[in-house]
């Protein structure tokens, strides 16, 4: 079928060349766009796509569209922009129900009006949507203390290619009725269904916050200090080790080789005690404690540093904490690094020309207990990179789950692990 003939059978609205360009993924352009108004409408739209079948790429705020392998095909840009309401919010219950297309910053603003927050901090909250955060399992630096998306989602409504909307979980913080399908969709990159609504548990904002900065000559002592603090009761809510390029990118001008930045949160007296402890641990590890008043913009910039971006190759290593020294040995000299020791994560920006070599070296160093994922790569480079690495154990089950929920393979085809 020719391109024009195919466009005729595709559901959705025509889009301008400009819109096409804005919604390109790894160099591929969509033919049409579908912008549902709610969960049922999303399911109807997916059903139309399934009948063709048309290949769908799901869009939220677009902050994670560089994640994943190059799609096998791309007909429809399926946007959640028309589903952006805060459906329910009862501050006294510390829960809320949100449509997938709501911007995270808008949700946080609504919660902040009641002194509450969702303690998840993925990059670019002004653009990132709730649904995108869930689908990409996009987390920020606060995961050191508050966990990840899976720890805060208590319910979900998903639109499936069958044309049905199905829910799992619920609106209460403790609930074991039925299977926990929230977990299945978190990080599935929209390959099993389109997340239409998400229910969260939320928390009261902490009474106090502080930052401790320490600078070190080497990365390993800084990583060691962060890992040690993560094992303490007064663990920081974020702990990162960054090289001087990242430090500068985050708005500081000091010429420290390696910086350990610690964010402390809690009740006022707890933060005081945590600051004393953190300072002591930094000194004992051979670091120097620096001035503690820094701009909030530092943490925002650090959070956004690991976001996928157009012309950057960004690699993420996830390893057990004790595996970090071995991984650091494999970090190329020309890489820039942001390390989250409590979570065993090393984010690296590497030059496109040496990305494949770096990836191979890091995969060797991460060993069987770790993994390396390409978070972002320009379209010219990505096809030469193995984005997800070898399929994980249990992959046959994953493929069968995909087959069970998206039998025609219309959802984000080829973008996920093992070609799913």
């Amino acid at each position, binding site marked *: 079928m020719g391109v024009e003939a195919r466009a005729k059978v595709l559901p959705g609205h025509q889009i301008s060349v400009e819109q096409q360009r804005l919604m390109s993924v790894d160099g591929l352009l969509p033919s049409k766009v579908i912008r549902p108004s709610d969960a049922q409408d999303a399911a109807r739209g997916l059903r139309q796509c399934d009948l063709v079948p048309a290949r769908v790429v799901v869009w939220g705020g677009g902050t994670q569209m560089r994640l994943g392998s190059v799609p096998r095909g791309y007909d429809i840009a399926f946007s959640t922009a028309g589903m952006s309401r805060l459906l329910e919010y009862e501050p*006294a*219950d*510390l*829960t809320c129900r949100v449509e997938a297309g709501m911007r995270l910053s808008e949700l946080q603003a609504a919660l902040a009006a009641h*002194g509450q927050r969702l303690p998840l901090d993925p990059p670019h909250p002004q653009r990132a949507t709730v649904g995108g955060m869930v689908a990409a*399992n996009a987390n920020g630096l606060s*995961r050191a203390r508050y*966990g990840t998306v*899976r*720890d805060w989602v208590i319910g979900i409504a998903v639109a499936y290619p069958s044309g*049905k909307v*199905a*829910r*799992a979980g619920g*609106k*209460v913080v*403790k*609930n*074991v*009725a*039925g*299977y*926990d399908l*929230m*977990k*299945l969709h978190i*990080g599935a990159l929209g390959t*099993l269904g389109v997340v239409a609504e998400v229910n969260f548990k939320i928390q009261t*904002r902490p009474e106090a916050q502080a930052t401790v900065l320490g600078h070190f000559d080497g990365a390993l002592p800084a990583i060691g200090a962060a*890992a040690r603090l993560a*094992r*303490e*009761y*007064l*663990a920081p809510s974020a702990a990162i080790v960054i090289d001087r390029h990242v430090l500068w990118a985050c708005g500081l001008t000091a010429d420290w080789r390696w910086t350990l930045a610690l964010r402390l949160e809690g*009740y006022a*007296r*707890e933060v005081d*005690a945590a600051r004393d402890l953190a300072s002591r641990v930094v000194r004992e590890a051979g670091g120097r404690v620096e001035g503690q008043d820094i701009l909030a913009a530092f943490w925002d910039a650090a959070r956004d540093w690991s976001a996928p971006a157009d012309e950057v190759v960004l690699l993420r290593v*996830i*390893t*057990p*904490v*004790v*595996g970090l020294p071995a991984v650091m040995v494999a970090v190329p000299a020309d890489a820039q690094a942001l390390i989250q020791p409590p*979570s*065993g994560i090393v984010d690296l920006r590497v030059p496109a020309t040496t990305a494949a070599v770096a990836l191979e070296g890091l995969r060797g160093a991460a060993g069987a*207990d*770790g*993994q390396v*994922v390409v978070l972002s790569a320009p379209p010219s480079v990505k096809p030469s990179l193995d984005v997800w690495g070898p*399929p*994980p*154990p*249990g*992959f046959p*089950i994953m493929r069968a789950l995909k087959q*069970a*929920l998206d039998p025609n393979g219309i959802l984000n085809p080829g973008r996920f692990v*093992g070609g799913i």
Partner: protein
Amino acid sequence: MEPAKLDSLLRQLREVVGERYAFADPYEVRLYQYDASPETALPDIVVIPGTAQEVANVVKTCAEAGVPITARSAASSLAGGTVPVEHGVVITFARMDQILEIDIENLRAVVQPGVVNLALSQALKPHGYYYVPDPSSQGACTIGGNVGTNAGGPHTLLYGVTVNHVTGLEIALPSGDLVQVGGRKAAEATGYDLTGLLVGSEGTMGIVTRIWVKIQPLPPVQKTLMAVYPDVETASNAVSAIVGTGILPAAIEMMDKLSIQAIEAASHAGYPLDAGAVLLLEVDGIPEVAEELGERMAKVCRENGASEVRVARSEAERQALWKGRKGAFSAMGRLSSDFYVMDGVVPRTKLPETLAKIDAISARTGYKICNVFHAGDGNLHPLVLFDAFKAGQYEAVLRIGDEILKLCADAGGSVTGEHGIGLEKRENIRYVFSDDDLEVMDRIRRVFDPHLLMNPGKVFPGEGRGHSAQPPPSGYPRRQVAAVGGGDDLWV
């Protein structure tokens, strides 16, 4: 099972686990017909494997023979989760009870499914760490069982339930494969989060043979308070007030008048007998913060109608307060020969009206109902008292249970907070999920278990072989006497 088939299967299973550890003697298998729920069903064969590979081989052997498999450890399920309703083979984990590794640097422990929950925290204590989820049955229930039901406990209010503390699983699948999923010692793995999906799947997808859990540092101090209220409504409002101040307690438990009387008769925890409701509150912290928060909570309690607030001054006093709460279910034996435990959840703000409606059901039906529960997360445990020897009472109590779960669902809550759907609530699951919801869940379980051999007859409504299948040819016997009351703290 036909005798010839049984003999042949038994022979095969003995080849896998050894002569001693597979048996079918009708007298011996009777011990495995029940759990802590009122339902029973006899297994044909009981197997006690010693290794993960043996579990996988047992599962494979059974799957090839088309025989149902039900996993069981401490059998403290209150929802009939381990009752082998379709008979077949019961696998029990009495021999797989080892803590395989404690890795402080990675904040992980690796355990076999038969490890008793409390045993792990006790092993971690000398290092200054613990495993957070603490069902009240933690002295008996196992981590394998906790994974099956995604178990909670009083201290999950602040730190989350089992799934928030499990990072990896090794599972035996009906195919005979033994697969490790999840990040294990790393924070996460690529691909779908099968670990998260499997936790709480009640043994219907595969059988867990090894578990990687997070551990965390023990709080330096735990400050525990008891606040006394004239009635449950005032106490419920106090809970909301405390949460509204921004204090994040580690636990908020409530007991009503009838429960207090039973607990005092059994364990002399020091709860005042004339109270309408008692709140048990706990905060974690470094000493100066715990002290400050304790005072702030005490003040909020008083301002919101508490006639008395008592702060535990020593670890012994703290343990005494908790002993009353954790022994609450067994204390009910003081009031009644039998009781039926419910496990519903409502949004916290709906507690007062839900408790009032439960009270009205009690008044209308004449059955006494006690309430002992996790008030902080709205997880109710109404206990309906009855006498199983009196005709019709058990059936009446089941109807009351249904009505209470409907109330919870209609209030925006759930039909189970931590006990699981099991056998008991297969029909009640319809109060919270539509046919479309259940159809997706059914499709997912069939990916793991296409022939519906893994703990069949559980979770899905419609009885027997799964939600979309035919009902079984016959019912299963109900026990005449519920084996509850007295004894140890077996339940939540």
